[in-house]
């Protein structure tokens, strides 16, 4: 068999980037938060994360093999593992396994595979799963275990999260209720021990998430536009509201509470559902920040981040149509 020359069209070189590198990069960025969640929530966190990841991967494998009957299975590209992790981070550590599996089925089966798989989904799959569970199982999804119960799973003691305290303060128009909030350092680091902080797996320790953000920026997996525009908008808007009336929490507490950090860094920056140009991303981020603050302050749910991101996911195609990049030569000297 003589050696042949290979021909193809240019370019004949490729960079080191790949889908796997990006997906696994985000998973690595989530590791600090994962370790912190194990330390704070113990066995509950392990069960929730493991179930979520395993069921997401399983559903993607099963749907690809038996329903779509395609030759290649996409589970190795890391996106289903990532969806599983992010879904898990949105859930309380005392959620029963069967509910988690339903959430994974909705996240992968409905929000991702029905639209065509990776790259085709209009909405963030993990958030769709989470919102579905919130609406279907409101009681289980709003009882948040307190940090520090390492060996308790479904029997963990629950308490009010910082966001529910803030909601309570607004609805009863009583700023003194805000004194019950943990101090900012505790919210940044999370604070183990009963009666100190409660929340979903991914939201209690903001510092771990910020470490993940720095890692993603350094490895150039995401750009700064979306997270920074969300943070700035939330800070400014909630700052103005706090100045207007002390019923609203101060901006630092708003930034550190609830799923804002997790959403801004990992969910809103999802490639598939966010705009493609920097200007579009800034508009997207500002709108998410605005919607989050509005829903938190005036809506009936204490948490607005998931809904804000899903609403803006619907606007992404519109933003893409109108926010085109600056063409070379457009501005003529």
């Amino acid at each position, binding site marked *: 068999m003589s050696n*042949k*020359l*290979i*021909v*193809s*069209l240019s370019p004949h070189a490729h960079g080191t980037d790949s889908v796997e590198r990006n997906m696994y990069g985000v998973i690595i960025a989530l590791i600090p938060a994962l370790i912190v969640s194990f330390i704070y929530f113990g066995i509950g966190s392990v069960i929730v994360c493991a179930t979520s990841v395993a069921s997401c991967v399983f559903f993607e494998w099963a749907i690809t093999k038996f329903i779509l009957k395609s030759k290649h299975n996409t589970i190795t590209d890391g996106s289903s593992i990532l969806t599983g992790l992010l879904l898990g981070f949105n859930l309380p550590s005392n959620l029963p396994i069967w509910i988690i599996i339903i959430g994974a089925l909705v996240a992968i089966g409905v929000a991702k595979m029905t639209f065509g798989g990776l790259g085709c989904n209009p909405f963030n799959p993990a958030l769709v799963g989470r919102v579905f569970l919130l609406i279907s199982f409101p009681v289980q999804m709003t009882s948040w275990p307190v940090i520090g119960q390492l060996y308790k799973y479904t029997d963990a003691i629950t308490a009010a999260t910082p966001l529910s305290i803030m909601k309570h303060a607004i609805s009863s128009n009583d700023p003194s209720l805000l004194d019950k909030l943990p101090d900012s350092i505790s919210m940044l680091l999370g604070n183990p021990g009963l009666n100190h902080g409660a929340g979903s797996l991914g939201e209690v320790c903001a510092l771990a998430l910020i470490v993940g953000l720095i890692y993603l920026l350094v490895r150039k997996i995401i750009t700064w536009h979306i997270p920074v525009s969300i943070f700035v908008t939330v800070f400014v808007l909630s700052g103005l509201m706090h100045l207007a009336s002390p019923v609203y929490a101060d901006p630092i507490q708003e930034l550190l509470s609830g799923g804002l950090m997790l959403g801004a860094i990992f969910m809103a920056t999802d490639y598939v559902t966010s705009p493609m140009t920097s200007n579009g991303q800034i508009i997207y981020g500002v709108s998410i920040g605005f919607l989050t603050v509005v829903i938190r302050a005036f809506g009936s749910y204490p948490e607005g981040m998931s809904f804000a991101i899903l609403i803006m996911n619907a606007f992404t195609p519109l933003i893409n149509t109108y926010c085109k990049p600056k063409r070379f030569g457009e501005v003529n000297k």
Partner: protein
Amino acid sequence: MSFVLIAVIVLGAIGLISAVILYVTSKKFAVKEDLRIAEVSAVLPQANCGGCGFPGCSGFAAACVKAADGGSLEGKHCPVGGLPVMEKVASILGMIAVEDAPNAAVVRCNGTCENRPRIVKYDGLMTCSAVNSCGTGETACGDGCLGCGDCVAACQFDAIYINPDTMIPEVDEDKCTACGACAKACPRNIIEIRLKGKKNKRVYVSCVNRDKGAFAIKVCKVSCIACGKCQKICQFNAITIDDNLAYIDDEKCRLCRLCEKECPRNAIIAVNFPIPKMADSKSKISIVGQKVEA
């Protein structure tokens, strides 16, 4: 009770007002169209293949109406529907349908994997237009079939498919409507729409290579080298040699097959002729896609 009455009256009034508005607007903003176009369009196959040369079936219907006003339906032919459809169109318009000779797509290349050696490996987008712009393809023939199936993708009637053993497209002449989509899709103009012929028999040169003979021989076992033997033996002046390639004019060809026997390269193919009962070892009748005996 009065609530129900009020609800009924209000909804009824809304319904009535909406009906009036819809009626008035449909009359005021109605598009005036010749009714015959819709009638003609209704009998057409609705394949919108463009084989008639007009944009879709509605375009063809409009053209037929215009032609009928001009006096004759000549030149208007629907390849998908054929004569039955044209007779219906003619009867709607009060004209006579002119029978058009049926055509079929013909793939003028026999450069199978056996006949044409592969000299390079192609890596990349597997469409004929991409491979065509990359060079001659995997073989040395710059005019021959690339086998990536742009023609198959263009066909709306499933009438053409790539034979996996030979990597050359083959036309299912029962399904082929001669709409010409495959011929347009082929970047090397290998597919030609030719007359289907008497009893579906036709003879053609299965080569489009325009290299000089000395080079054409190296490139493929069944290439045309423009030696001219076919032209000399044809008694009906049906064969022309131009730019190192022989071409058989389908209107002049009388299907005598003398050229096929003369061709030293087995580059001329006759389709749908009965295979002789006695196997003639000296006969050089070649069948599309089959290995050629030297």
